[in-house]
């Protein structure tokens, strides 16, 4: 027993590198994708996530799966194609620019963050855009109701 030497302890560097959460870039991605969705007019209106998010839902899962690696142009081209097949309004040049900016931010974040963190980022962007659109629709709905109410009062 006494001859046994104590094993040298193996030292590992344990701990998390402090990475700053990209709140600003997430907000910018939300802003740009929300702006792009201004061009998207779905066949069926409603608050469902599929109806509201349109091609953005597909885009987020494609970037998360690195379907086109880091090629911003490929993502943008693919989404333009989906957009023009499924929307009642064709995509505009301003819409393309917003879409491109949103994709650039997401591809950059995908490069810089771990898969786990990027999943959280995508989730934030996804629900962030959805919330903004749902709010916009609710406000529009409320305005229409108020206008209808006023018209009803005037006709009486």
């Amino acid at each position: 027993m006494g001859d046994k030497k104590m094993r040298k302890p193996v030292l590992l560097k344990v701990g998390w590198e402090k990475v700053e959460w990209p709140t600003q870039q997430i907000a910018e991605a939300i802003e740009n994708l929300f702006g792009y969705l201004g061009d998207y007019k779905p066949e069926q209106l409603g608050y469902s996530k599929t109806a509201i998010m349109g091609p953005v839902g597909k885009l987020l899962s494609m970037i998360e799966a690195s379907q086109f690696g880091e090629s911003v142009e490929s993502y943008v081209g693919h989404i333009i194609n989906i957009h023009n097949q499924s929307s009642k309004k064709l995509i505009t040049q301003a819409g393309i620019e917003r879409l491109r900016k949103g994709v650039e931010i997401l591809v950059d974040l995908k490069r810089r963050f771990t898969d786990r963190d990027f999943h959280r980022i995508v989730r934030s962007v996804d629900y962030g855009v959805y919330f903004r659109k749902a709010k916009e629709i609710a406000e529009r709905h409320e305005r229409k109701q108020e206008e209808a109410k006023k018209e009803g009062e005037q006709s009486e």
Partner: protein
Amino acid sequence: MRRFSNVTTSIVFNESKKGYTKFPSDVLFKDYSRKLSVKEGWIAIDGLENALTKLCSLVLVERVLSRAKADYGKDTLLRILAAEPGEVVARYVQHSDPEKSSKYMKQLIRALELWSDG
């Protein structure tokens, strides 16, 4: 009783942005009361009004979800706290009648905004 009757003329109503709690006026606590900036037997609690607004908005979100049977049972408040506002809206839409969902949507969104930004 005297302290309560003084409340109407105290700083409580002059500074509505803050919350207040009572502090004993005992001489033994004189040093502490100076350190805690006690005024007229009250200590200001910064951010209390904001905290109450947030709490009320959370309760409101819970009510809207419960009405649509989209709540998370006993864990509802905690789950709302951890969820993205958009996630709560999506859950509400998923569980509610499409025609009725728009009725409370604005209320839900306002409450969620108060909760997340306020």
